């Protein structure tokens, strides 16, 4: 039982990170039919930005964090303005190929312009173990789970309860109809791209001490989050979250109870099963319902 809870903590703390990155996939897909294969790099770049501001330039944590979010927002804005807006009329495939290119550009750009080395990032919370009847956990794991959960809940409330959030949902459910309401769809789409990159920037802060800061971490995170979004449901924010947790837990439990060697293979098997049985994802909605 103690082992089970131990694994649960491990799986959830990874899964929630996958989930928060996967939410970005959902946001972009819903509002602008964009599949962003550079999503992982949208986490990687803020990581390096944070290192540059906080560790290299020695700016105190909070101002550095805010500047990093501003930088992320600019990245998201430029992504929409210079790439998506121009290429979207060409269809999803064009966007997919372009974002794959962008992913490589950002990755090797960082490698060449800065470093191929993995950089250290100090932990945000204590990593001293706390023991509780056979279970050992660190404040880092618990606080990561708590903070990311809070961020997701706040995001959820903003989308469900605020006027802008409603407008985002409206754009996702019917772009032209949203325009009939007087909603400026362009602005909303930009807002969503900025929101996505700010969210990715926040995820970067939590991920940096755990994964360290490396130029190719985006591939790992991007693939995991993409799989999570498909497993959970590409058209639902809660789908992304459910998918992320499923991937995190499946990896951990497969490694613990079956074999450590092919943990990624189990996630892929899970992906196939979901695609066969419920192609819209675990909590996704069938697109035909529109």
């Amino acid at each position, binding site marked *: 039982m103690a*082992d089970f809870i*131990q*694994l649960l*903590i*491990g*799986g959830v*703390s*990874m899964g929630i990170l996958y989930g928060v990155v996967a939410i970005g996939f959902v946001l972009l897909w819903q509002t602008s039919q964009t599949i962003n294969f550079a999503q992982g790099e949208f986490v990687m770049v803020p990581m390096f930005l944070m290192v540059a501001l906080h560790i290299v330039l020695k700016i105190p944590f909070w101002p550095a964090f805010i500047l990093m979010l501003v930088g992320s927002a600019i990245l998201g804005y430029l992504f929409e303005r210079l790439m998506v807006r121009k290429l979207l009329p060409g269809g999803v495939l064009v966007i997919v190929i372009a974002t794959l290119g962008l992913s490589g550009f950002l990755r*090797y750009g960082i*490698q060449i312009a800065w*470093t*191929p*080395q*993995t950089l*250290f990032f100090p932990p945000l919370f204590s*990593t001293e*173990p706390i*023991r509780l009847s056979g279970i*050992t*956990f*660190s404040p*880092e*794991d618990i606080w990561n789970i708590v903070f990311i959960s809070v961020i997701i809940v706040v995001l959820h409330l903003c989308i469900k309860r605020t006027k802008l959030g409603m407008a985002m949902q409206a754009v996702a459910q019917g772009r032209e109809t949203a325009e009939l309401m007087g909603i400026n769809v362009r602005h909303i789409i930009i807002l969503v791209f900025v929101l996505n990159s700010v969210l990715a920037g926040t995820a970067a802060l939590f991920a940096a001490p*755990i*994964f*360290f800061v*490396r*130029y*190719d971490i985006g591939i*790992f995170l991007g693939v995991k989050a993409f799989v999570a979004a498909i497993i959970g449901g590409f058209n639902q924010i809660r789908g992304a979250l459910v998918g992320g947790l499923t991937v*995190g837990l499946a*990896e*951990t*439990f*497969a*490694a*613990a109870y079956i*074999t*450590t*060697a092919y*943990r*990624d293979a189990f996630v892929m098997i899970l992906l196939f099963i979901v695609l066969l049985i419920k192609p819209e994802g675990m909590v996704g909605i069938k697109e035909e319902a529109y």
Partner: protein
Amino acid sequence: MLRKTLVSISILSLLIFFSSAPAIAAEAVKIGVVIEMTGAAASLGDYWTKGVKFATKEINDAGGILGRPVEYKIFDTQSKPPISVSAVKKALAWGPFALSGPIYSSSTLANMFLSQEAKTPQNVGSENWRISTKGSKYIWRCSTQQGFEVPKLLNFIMSEKKPKAMAMLHVNNDYGIGAMETTKKVLKEKWNTELVAVMATEQKQADYSAELTTVRRKNVDALFIYFLEEEAAIVYRQIRKMGLKLVVFGPNSSISEDSLRLGKAAAEGVYGMSGFEYNAPEPNCARISKWFKKQYKEWPDNEFMKGYNSIYLVKTGIEQTGGFDKVKYSQKMHDIFITPKMQKNICGGNLYYDDVGDLHLWDYLVQVKWDGTHAKPGIVAALPPLKGPDSNKKTIWYEK
């Protein structure tokens, strides 16, 4: 005004002429550096190429090899074995005297037949034991291979730490699997014991809670970690976060500068072994490490020394044969005892190359120390090589 311009132009052209003059004067000794510039091992490849660059500069400043300058060209393997094959092909098409790299064992195993066919010396950073069984006369290692490293390391752990239950985590590629095979064999044959758990992990894995939960369940008191640098650092953090108290040990990657820089306090107490340490009592390692620290504001990883040596090995071979015949080079460089007297700049003290190109040298046993800001390798002992003239020497203890 005109005069000024004329003067500057003539000075400039003179400068260009003189700076490029030596390169034109003699045909260069070309070395193809086939290395991990991108991909999972890019960080290691970066250290390696810095070593290559420094050695080349040093040699050229001192007049080159038999009067000829060294020229190198980099071919990226992207840390992928299939790409490394085409990289070696491209490098060979360039017409080099020798190759330097790659580091990844899987890559070397995939591409080494090419250097063998082309009869071109290849100095690799790989440590998988299988490489030496392929019968190539054109492969030389730049560090101790697993078949000799693992017994030395286990010898120390078994006799000094006397663990009751040992487990092993290894990365699921040729590097990690090779070490796992050697470990099982050595434990069985020499110590008549077994690992209580063996777990293969994915490259780039970020969460080890499943593996460490098993380690805890099986009451493991000594954990052998055979990972690459980043993964080693990540697992140190998680061992600490789970509050596990056990002896952790591993190969040179687990105590190399990259692991320590990332692992910080969590790396404290980890044991490892390496032929090259920046703070080892060996003057050449210390000298080039100081240069590195001055240049890049940090201590080098041992891949830097390995890359550096990969160039000096070529210099040694050419000088020992007195010419540029690759076949003679290959004959000369097997069963050779390279001492600082023979090659004054080479790192690692006395280096013995046996008949299959395996390197035997004194390895340093290291335990990581934490001084509150930096994790540093603390030299515990120098372990003599298992083969060659120094193999009958005794372990030198620095602290016990």
